[in-house]
């Protein structure tokens, strides 16, 4: 996105889309290769919500690649936001809610970076974030909405929102600016080598993000055949031509959950919360050293989580289908 441009002009958006190779082609690669699809300064949208279907492995790869100055947007930001702030990969996060999770109280890492002015946290209402992606996905420059009106959330956003009047009813609404991220990072349960993705359970904002973005990097618990995708085309949620890279990454959301596959690694999250609560700077540095800079590969990272934790999270995750 051009610096300072809130909404990408339509012809520029079209030009970027036209330049992408959208033909039916295989695009399987490694996490390291995929990380090169993200440039310093990009606006990166993150799929999932809170501790669900977070593309942790991709964020891990971006931290290891020492990416800088990313502008991040997400529905609700959890510990991956602490990692992005703490590693210096991002100092600007756009979201509706940012903390590790309700049960752990207010994030000390978020507080440390925002209260000191080291990093920016732009707050929009949850639906507003979603409708900004949706407008971007639809190819319109704004979406009228009845929320945020009258609040300080709206007031604080200044010129980033505008008041409009309905030309039919005269009702006053807010115009939300379309959001077309440079890159979207999305983790799913299964996809084929072309990037056709099928999501089980909670969808969050992932479909709109994929449609809105100018590049999509997809990690998947497993790569399935295109034949399997074609057997249930009404389960496909993201079409291949929006996707630029596909990486098979088992446990790609750990320590967060992937619906029906594994639940959050609660003990790991407890430990992270305790050490950042004690000291947001040192606690986060230790976490990054231990789990990001230390392990050489994603397999090494999973080794650190430990087989017991992997098995336990998996058992809890699959239990959703036990009823």
């Amino acid at each position, binding site marked *: 996105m051009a610096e300072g441009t809130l909404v990408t002009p339509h012809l520029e958006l079209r030009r970027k889309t036209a330049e992408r190779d959208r033909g039916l082609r295989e695009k399987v690669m490694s996490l390291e290769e995929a990380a090169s699809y993200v440039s310093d300064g990009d606006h990166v949208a993150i799929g999932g*919500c*809170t*501790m*669900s279907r977070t593309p942790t492995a991709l964020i891990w790869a971006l931290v290891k690649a020492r990416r800088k100055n990313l502008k991040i947007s997400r*529905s*609700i930001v959890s510990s991956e936001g602490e990692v992005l702030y703490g590693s210096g990969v991002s100092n600007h996060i756009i*979201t*509706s*809610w*940012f*903390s590790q*999770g*309700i*049960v752990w109280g*207010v*994030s000390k890492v*978020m*507080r440390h970076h*925002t*209260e000191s002015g080291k990093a920016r*946290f732009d*707050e*929009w*209402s*949850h*639906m507003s974030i*979603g*409708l900004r992606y*949706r407008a971007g996905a639809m190819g319109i420059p704004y979406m009228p*909405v*009845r*929320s*945020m*009106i*009258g*609040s*300080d*959330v709206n007031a*604080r956003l200044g010129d980033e929102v505008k*008041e409009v009047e309905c030309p039919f009813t005269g*009702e*006053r609404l*807010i115009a939300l600016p379309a959001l077309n991220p440079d890159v979207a990072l999305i983790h799913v349960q299964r996809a084929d080598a072309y990037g056709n993705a099928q999501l089980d*359970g*909670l*969808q*969050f*904002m*992932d*479909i*709109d993000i994929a449609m809105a973005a100018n590049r999509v990097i997809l990690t998947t618990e497993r790569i399935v055949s295109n034949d399997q995708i074609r057997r249930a085309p009404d389960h496909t949620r993201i079409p291949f031509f929006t996707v630029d890279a596909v990486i098979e990454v088992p446990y790609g959301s750990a320590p967060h*959950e992937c*619906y*029906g596959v594994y*639940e*959050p690694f*609660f003990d790991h999250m407890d430990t992270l919360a305790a050490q950042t609560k004690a000291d947001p700077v040192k606690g986060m540095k230790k976490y990054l050293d231990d789990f990001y800079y230390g392990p050489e590969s994603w397999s090494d990272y999973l080794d650190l989580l430990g087989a017991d934790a992997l098995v336990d999270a998996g058992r809890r*995750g699959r239990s*959703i289908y036990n*009823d």
Partner: protein
Amino acid sequence: MTERKNYTASELLAVMSGRILKDGQIVFAGVGIPLLAATLAQGVHAPGLTILFEGGVIGPFVVPGELPPSTNEQRCTRRANMVLPITDVLLLLQRGYIDVGFMGGAQIDRYGNLNSSFIGDPDNPSIRLPGTGGGNDISSLTQMIVAMKHEKRRFVEKVDYITSPGFIDGGSSRADSGLIAGGMYRVVTDLAILSFDEKTKEMQVEALHPGVSAEEVKDNTGFDIKIGDHVARTEPPQKDELAVLRNLDPERLYTA
């Protein structure tokens, strides 16, 4: 409060707010007390109550002892009627399908405005809180019930920042600002049930909980709150209510 009470403040909150919910309603609930209270209501007097979660869930059954850590994980979807994208579940509020939004609160003011964003000056806050989530959308687009602890520092004359709008500056100011629907319905605390004056939109005491005096409410409220002479009094939590509640949260995650 009396010495004889056999329930915690959080349990009182859950019971009292659960009673306000009516059978057949569609309730957009947050985790914690709202979720517990709504599930309690389903079990006691409102079997046809439908719960919605922000993560994109319609009509789930919460499994006792497996309370979800937020509204966005798979535990929220147990035996749900439907799951759908976040934006679409929130749009149900805008379309008008939801009867009640039900959430907790960190700071509230005389006109029912909620703050969950900044303590102190937003440009230089003493505490940056996690933010609105869906709170702003819910309170902008439907009738609200808020459940929270009754403390002077939480009940303030004017919030530092309006995250989730109540009646803004009172009177017709909410509608004047463009919020033509919804608004605060009840605030339920561990001391009382609070409502809003029909005209001025100022918070007032609707009913006092068992053993609570008018003085106690005034002392714990950071602004001058109206209490009528013949204010109602709530019935104490009943055995069946507490039994259902304790079965839901045996580890007292949210009702300690």
